[in-house]
């Protein structure tokens, strides 16, 4: 590439600034060719023994925290938080801190490859990128209606590009899915906001300044929306408010990390959340001297008490605590949404906030600045039906592992076998990659350009930037570049972008005049600042205030939960630090004790100690959990903070692929989940019941709560 220039020249050029604007704009995306080399071929700007820091964005979950990567001699060492970033203010979670174990993971896919998927007679072989581009170009010439894209929740710039591409082709828009988003009920939340406030955005809750917070199933300290943002806010809520220490009350059947930190945990019957919120809302309205809105009258308090198992007096005390608080706030997510009543619960909780008048107030509810994309299971289901019916000729997959993340009951695997051409851009040989025809590996996030613009945790309009912090280790290629090259090679003038950087620059161009904390006279200087700061945001905090025109007369039909049959249990799953399961190949995430159980490297079934005693089960006894959709096996962990009629299995383990550290440990609860969805199209599994059968075997769990180790115990 003749345009290659070193970073130092680049900095010199951009430093010339405005005077050379006219010349600069004609140069093309020179920074595209800034190279960062490993220490064996050290770039000249690197000095032995000196660290170089790059600002980028964490892509380990969709939250989009700002990171600063410390590099030396061309190697990425530690991931630190970007102190100025509006999402995380310099802080990180365990997943973000282990991103380098993804970059340097020995099990990465290192080059484009063709796999003989179903036919042993066609052995797999490595390809060149020219061949790969040709394959994609040919695929893009299929009848547009028969092309499908399935993407994950990150990165946003790829989603934006594919949206434009499918539009230009006349193909259906790309679909997004992510297990973490499904488990947190993100789509339901977005739909509830759309119904009440008119725009499909994620809400932003000002937890830091709230004084009494009710949380319905939202595990904001570990997995919900933007865990670092909300953990920071939690710290401030406890000790940062000079007036009083904030109080937290959590309603959920199994104590999550958030409920574990609450002042009060209310273990209501799974599926009865909507009943509780509606009953609370009635009393709160009365106590505040307001007319009770029609929609809240859908249940009588006695009925709610009976369905949820929460005595009327306690309901009354909770209503009084909330109604008389100076800054009351109600949050909703996770187990309160991923159920048939989910959309009712979500609307009712948002309306409860409106009742106490905290919309747009300190300690209240705001709307995120950017629109959010829903990730409904219902649409994945529709895609599966099209695949089954032979209506999909080519399926492109990026950033999602449906054979692991989507409930097996949906039949994705069988449907995938019916698609004649599956092109996967996965960086790792995950379950879905192994069942694809072509692997065209994208760079690791730490080798990539990009942006994340839907930032649920930002208190202001913001875009977060990604840039490579090291030179790509292997023969991988940015998926955006592959698609652009293929679009060009297919002979149609589909997209007006030269390459990925050109695309990103065109997308961020409007930000120059959007009132950010920096600007520049032209895009190249703007671009260098964008990279330097790790994104763009406004100098002052400020988000749109939701406005509620009028409450609907009803939030939807309400189904009371069906109690489990004799000998059966409610079954639920939740995300811990392994998130959607893509983190399972980071050895330090495996070694990290689960916050509540301290178990490492495996799955477990949480059972209330009393229930375990009745069944004659001890810790580490292997049991089989069976639902109408399948069965899984795991060791018992006697968990004191779960309802005696409920079992829980964490999500994220049970990989049959994804490399040496992920494979063959634990079980995948997606194997036993139903494929049903709620009124918003989100996965609905709360209320599923399961039976438990002892297998007679034992398998000790490596728990850290026992400092001496557990092998001595048996």
């Amino acid at each position: 590439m003749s345009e290659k220039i070193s970073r130092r020249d680049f900095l010199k050029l951009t430093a010339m600034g405005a005077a050379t604007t006219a010349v600069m704009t004609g140069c093309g995306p020179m920074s595209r060719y800034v190279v960062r080399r490993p220490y064996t071929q050290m770039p000249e700007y690197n000095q032995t023994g000196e660290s170089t820091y790059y600002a980028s964005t964490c892509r380990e979950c969709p939250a989009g925290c700002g990171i600063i990567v410390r590099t030396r001699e061309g190697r990425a060492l530690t991931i630190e938080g970007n102190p100025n970033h509006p999402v995380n203010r310099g802080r990180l979670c365990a997943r973000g801190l282990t991103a380098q174990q993804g970059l340097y993971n020995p099990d990465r896919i290192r080059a484009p490859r063709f796999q003989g998927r179903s036919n042993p007679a066609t052995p797999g072989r490595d390809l060149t990128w020219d061949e790969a581009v040709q394959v994609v170009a040919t695929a893009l010439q299929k009848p547009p209606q028969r092309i499908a894209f399935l993407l994950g929740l990150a990165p946003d710039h790829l989603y934006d590009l594919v949206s434009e591409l499918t539009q230009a082709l006349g193909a259906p828009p790309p679909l997004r899915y992510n297990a973490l988003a499904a488990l947190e009920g993100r789509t339901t939340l977005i739909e509830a906001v759309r119904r009440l406030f008119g725009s499909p955005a994620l809400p932003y809750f000002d937890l830091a300044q709230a004084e009494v917070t009710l949380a319905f199933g939202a595990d904001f300290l570990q997995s919900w929306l933007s865990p670092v943002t909300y953990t920071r806010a939690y710290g401030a809520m406890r000790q940062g408010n000079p007036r009083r220490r904030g109080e937290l009350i959590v309603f959920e059947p199994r104590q999550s990390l958030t409920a574990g930190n609450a002042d009060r945990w209310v273990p209501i019957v799974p599926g009865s959340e909507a009943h509780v919120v509606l009953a609370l809302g009635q009393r709160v309205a009365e106590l505040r001297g307001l007319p009770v809105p029609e929609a809240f009258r859908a249940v009588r308090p006695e009925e709610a008490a009976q369905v949820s198992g929460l005595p009327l007096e306690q309901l009354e005390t909770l209503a009084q605590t909330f109604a008389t608080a100076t800054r009351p706030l109600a949050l909703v997510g996770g187990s309160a949404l991923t159920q048939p009543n989910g959309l009712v619960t979500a609307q009712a909780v948002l309306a409860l906030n409106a009742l106490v008048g905290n919309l747009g107030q300190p300690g209240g509810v705001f709307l995120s600045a950017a629109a959010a994309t829903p990730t409904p299971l219902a649409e994945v289901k529709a895609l599966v039906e099209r695949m089954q019916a032979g209506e999909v000729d080519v399926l492109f997959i990026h950033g999602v592992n449906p054979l692991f993340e989507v409930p097996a009951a949906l039949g994705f695997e069988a449907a995938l076998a019916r698609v004649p051409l599956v092109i996967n851009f996965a960086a790792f040989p995950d379950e879905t990659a192994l069942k694809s025809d072509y692997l065209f590996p994208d760079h690791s996030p730490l080798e990539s350009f990009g942006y994340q613009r839907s930032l649920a945790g930002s208190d202001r309009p913001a875009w977060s930037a990604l840039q490579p912090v090291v030179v790509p280790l292997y023969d991988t290629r940015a998926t955006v570049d592959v698609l652009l090259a293929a679009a060009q090679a297919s002979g149609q003038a589909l997209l007006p972008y030269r390459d990925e950087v050109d695309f990103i620059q065109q997308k961020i161009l409007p930000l120059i005049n959007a009132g950010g904390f920096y600007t520049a006279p032209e895009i190249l200087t703007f671009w260098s600042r964008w990279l330097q700061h790790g994104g763009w945001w406004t100098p002052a905090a400020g988000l749109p205030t939701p406005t509620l025109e009028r409450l609907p007369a009803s939030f939807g039909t309400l189904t009371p939960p069906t109690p489990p049959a004799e000998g059966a249990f409610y079954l639920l799953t939740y995300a811990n630090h392994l998130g959607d399961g893509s983190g399972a190949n980071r050895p330090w995430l495996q070694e990290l004790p689960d916050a509540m159980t301290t178990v490492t490297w495996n799955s477990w079934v949480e059972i209330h100690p009393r229930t375990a005693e009745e069944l004659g089960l001890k810790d580490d006894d292997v049991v089989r959990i069976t639902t109408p959709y399948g069965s899984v096996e795991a060791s018992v962990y006697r968990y004191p903070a779960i309802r005696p009629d409920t079992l829980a299995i964490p999500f994220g383990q049970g990989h049959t692929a994804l490399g040496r550290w992920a494979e063959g440990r634990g079980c995948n609860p997606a194997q036993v989940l139903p494929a049903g969805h709620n009124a918003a199209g989100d996965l609905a599994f709360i209320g599923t019941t399961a039976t438990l059968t002892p297998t007679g075997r034992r398998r000790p769990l490596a728990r850290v709560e026992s400092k001496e180790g557990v092998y001595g115990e048996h």
Partner: protein
Amino acid sequence: MAEERPAKWGLVVDLDRCTGCNACIVACALENNVPFVGEDEVAYGRALYWIRTQRYWEGEYPEVTPTFQPVMCQQCGNAPCEPVCPVYASVHSEEEQINLAVYNRCVGTRYCANNCPYFARVFNWFDYELPEPMRSYLNPDVTVRRRGVMEKCTFCVQRIVRGRQKARAEGRELRDGEVQPACVQACPAEALVFGDLSDPESRVSQLARSQRRYHLLEALGTLPRVTYLKGVGNHGG
């Protein structure tokens, strides 16, 4: 250049903020080249966490709640691990006034671990090889230990040294908050605060005077440099 005042490094752990999320453990491990040992070795009690979260359950269902307490080396002013080491591998550093582990002196008697009342010291039973190219992320500022060596939290002494050198080169004193161990920097709840206890105005000094303060096993007279602030309400402390 101004005469340097020796700092008295200290850490405050606010248990009312700490959520038990364990981000500190990972931040520490990747900064300090702490190896992961795998499922079996964890189950044998040989995990190498330099910082761990002690989780205890309190109360009975449904009033049951976990308490979380991150515990790292308490950097005792009067350290029980020091006098028992036959080869002076567990020593007090003059300059940082903290307890350091000198890996290339350690002969693995493990007397120090037996004598540490806080279970802060961990022993490297094996060489834990990292497959290529994973070694690329090893921090060149921190020794990669091999088997037979005792190791533990150093308050990220490499970061203290780096900060001090930078300040010296710029001819100024260290600013409060300029040096942060990896756990402190990562902690999303801002539960950890690090700084110079000899400066009464530093944030860490101010917090260490809080009415909620206590030290672990205070009665032993180890004079820890880590101060805990009690949780309020029904959790922590």
